[in-house]
């Protein structure tokens, strides 16, 4: 195994931890936090690829910076929706997001 494999395995495991949080937890704020973990895992993979693969050298950090910016936008919008829903329903459970059902 070369060095890049270790970084990619770390990114995979962190991504799967985040995916489990998104799938299994009920609290909406915790789901947003797990999404952040997944985005961080992707960033690790991007920076690792650009650090070790000659063809894409330098592009990974740039792309990671864009991902961080979009993540900041996503977390503000996501938490604003969570707060708006909490104000109407007095609940943070993902199950309380059922207004569009049927």
């Amino acid at each position, binding site marked *: *195994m070369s*060095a890049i*494999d*270790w970084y*990619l*395995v*770390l990114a*995979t*495991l*962190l991504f*799967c*931890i985040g*995916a*489990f*949080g998104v*799938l*299994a*937890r*009920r*609290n909406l*704020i*915790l789901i*947003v*936090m*797990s999404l*952040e*973990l997944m985005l*961080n895992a992707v*960033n*690790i993979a991007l*920076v*690792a690829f*650009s*650090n*070790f*693969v000659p063809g894409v*050298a*330098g*592009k*990974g*950090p*740039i792309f990671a*910076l*864009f991902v*961080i*910016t*979009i993540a*900041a*936008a996503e*977390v*503000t*919008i996501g*938490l*604003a929706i*969570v707060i*708006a829903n*909490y*104000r109407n329903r*007095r609940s*943070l459970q993902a199950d309380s997001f059922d207004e569009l059902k049927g």
Partner: protein
Amino acid sequence: MPGGDFHPIAFSIIAAWILVCGIGVVTFKNIVHSAVSMVFCFLGVAAIYLLLNASLVAIIQLLVYVGAISVVILFAIMLTEAQEGEYRLFFNRQSIFAFPLTVAVAVVVTAILVSSRYPQPISLKSLTPNLKGLATLLFNVYVFPFELVSLVLLAAMIGAIVLARREDELQ
């Protein structure tokens, strides 16, 4: 890290740190503990960027994730009520399927990563350019996405204000 070579001991410590904090985020019952665990996880990721010679990304990670996003999430936690109850109430019914599914995905992807061959030679030296090289890339080749992403941030800011506002203020 001069040379950018692989440091097995530093990498193992930081990787274990990140994974333990990540598991803490998804398993803690108290959401404030989860948030603090998430901050430590972000710090570990910043250290991984330093190991990969990407000091600019490490600094941005510290500023945006550890600084801004953590504070926003802690504010959201403070504005809402903490949940009490039994441990199983914090997980939904799908978690019985979610756990084996994510473990299976992790095992399969790790096996593929370990056994795969790369089409082009993998460098053992660090290839990440220095700050000057990254800035040249960002403000020459990628200047259009850079400007576009600032528009996205502006739109997100306005959207967050509109969404989080009270209904009676709209009249």
